[in-house]
C-alpha cells in the first residue's frame, strides 16, 4: 500500500499543500488534473526524485520520505520515457538487474521473460534510438518492471501515441496488471484512458485531491 500523508512540496513559486492519498495493494489509480496542478510532482515525490517540504510517504507501512530513490523499489515511466540512448533494448530492460548485481544468466532469463510478454523479443539487440513510439513505450515499461517493483508510476506515457498504438498499450497494461499484480498510479489527461484502465480515478484540483 502507498500512503501520502499531508504532503507539501514548495519549489519557487509552485506549491502543493497538504495532499493526502492512499492506494491499496494491486490497485490501479488514475490521477487527473489540469496542466500545472502538480501531478508529475506527486509522482516524483513518491519516486524519491523530489524532496517534500513536509508530510510523509509510506509504502507498506514503511516511511520512505527520506529514502533515496534507489531504496524505494518503485518503477517509474516518465512522459518522455527517458530511455538510455547509448544502450540497446536488452541493456535498457536489464539495467536495474545489472545495477543490483544479478548474475548474467539470471539477468538474461528475466530480460527474455519480460521482453516476451511485452512483445519486444525481436527488438532486444536494437538501439533504443531506432524504436517506434509503441516499441519505445514497451521498452520503458519493461525497464521499469524488470526488477519486479511493487509500485509502478506512469506519467502520461501514452499521450504521444496514435489511437491504434494507444489501444495496444491499454491492452498491454491490463496484461501487466494480471501478470505482476503491481500497484499503479497513472497520470493521464485522457478521461477514456483513465476509466478504461483504472479501478479509481482521482482529480487533483487547486493543489488538493478531489
Amino acid at each position: 500500500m502507498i500512503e501520502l500523508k499531508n504532503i507539501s512540496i514548495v519549489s519557487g513559486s509552485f506549491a502543493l499543500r497538504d495532499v493526502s492519498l492512499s492506494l491499496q495493494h494491486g490497485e490501479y489509480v488514475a490521477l487527473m488534473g489540469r496542466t500545472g496542478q502538480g501531478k508529475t510532482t506527486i509522482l516524483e515525490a513518491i519516486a524519491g526524485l523530489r524532496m517534500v517540504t513536509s508530510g510523509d510517504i509510506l509504502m507498506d507501512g514503511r516511511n520512505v520520505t527520506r529514502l533515496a530513490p534507489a531504496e524505494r523499489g518503485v518503477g517509474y515511466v516518465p512522459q518522455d520515457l527517458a530511455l538510455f540512448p547509448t544502450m540497446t533494448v536488452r541493456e535498457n530492460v536489464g539495467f536495474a538487474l545489472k545495477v543490483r548485481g544479478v548474475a548474467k544468466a539470471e539477468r538474461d532469463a528475466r530480460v527474455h521473460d519480460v521482453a516476451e510478454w511485452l512483445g519486444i523479443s525481436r527488438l532486444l539487440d536494437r538501439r533504443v534510438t531506432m524504436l517506434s513510439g509503441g516499441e519505445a513505450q514497451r521498452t520503458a515499461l519493461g525497464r521499469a518492471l524488470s526488477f519486479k517493483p511493487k509500485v509502478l508510476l506512469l506519467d502520461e506515457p501514452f499521450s504521444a501515441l496514435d489511437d491504434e498504438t494507444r489501444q495496444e498499450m491499454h491492452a498491454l497494461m491490463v496484461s501487466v496488471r494480471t501478470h505482476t499484480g503491481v500497484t499503479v498510479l497513472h497520470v493521464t489527461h485522457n478521461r477514456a484512458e483513465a476509466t478504461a484502465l483504472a479501478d479509481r480515478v482521482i482529480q487533483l484540483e487547486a493543489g488538493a485531491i478531489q
Partner: protein
Amino acid sequence: MLPSSTSDKVFRSTLFVLGGSYVLLVVLLLVADLAYSSWGQLAELLGKPEIVHAIWLTLGTCTAAAVLSMLVAVPLGFVLARYRFRLKWLVDALVEIPVVLPPLVVGLSLLILFHLPVNGVKLEDWLRSNLGWSVTYAVPAVVLAQFAVAGAFAVRTMRVTFDQIHPRAELVALTLGCSQAQAFWRVALPQAWRGMIAAFTIAWARSLGEFGPILVFAGATRMRTEVLSTTVFLELSVGNLESAVAVSLLMVAVALVVLLVLRGLGVERRA
C-alpha cells in the same frame, strides 16, 4: 537539395561566400607558408636533435595537459550543468577567466603563485624540498602553463555537453537502483562521449598553440623546455625566418594528424 526560389539561392550563396572567405584565408595562410618553405628545409629541421626533442616534448606535454584538463572538466562541467549552489555565478565567472585573460598574464600569474612567499615558504621551494619536484623553468611548468588555459576551454565544452543531455535519464536510473555516482558513470558519461572527444581535442589544440605562458613560466631552453611554439619564437629571435616557417608547417602537420585521429575516434563511436 530542396527546390528553391531566387531569394533562397541568394541566401545560400551569401552563406557560402561569407563562410568560405574564412576558409580561404586559412588556406592562403597555409599556401603562403608552404611557398616560403621547402621539403629540404623540413627534412633538415627533422634532422636536428633539438627539433626532434621539441616535437616529442610538444606531443607529451599537450597530451598531459589535455588529460589533466579532462580530469577537471568532466566533474566541473557536470557540477555546473546539474547542481544549483550558492556562489555558482562566481564559479561560472572564475572558470572563464583563463579564456579572456591575455595568455602572458596567465604565465605571469603562475610564476607569481609558485614564488610568492606564504609564511616565508614559496610553493616552488616546498615542492622541491618535500617532493623533489622542480616546476618553474622545467617540463612541469610547460604542462601547467598549457593546462591553465586549456582547462578553461575543456570545462566550457563539457558544461555545454552536460547541459544538452536531459537529466531525466539519470533520474530514472536512480529509481532503477543506481546511486548518483552510478547514474553518472553508467548513464550520463556514455552520453557525453562526443563532448569528451571535443573537449579533449580543444584542450590539446589550445595546448599546442600556447606560447605566452610557457615562455614566462617555463622559459624556452633548448633540449629542456622548448616546445614547437617556442621553437618558432627562438628561430625568429635569431632571424631564422625560414626555420620558423618550417616549424610552423610542422605544427600544422602534427595538429592535423592528431585532430583527424580524434575526429575519427568520435565518428567511429557515433557509427
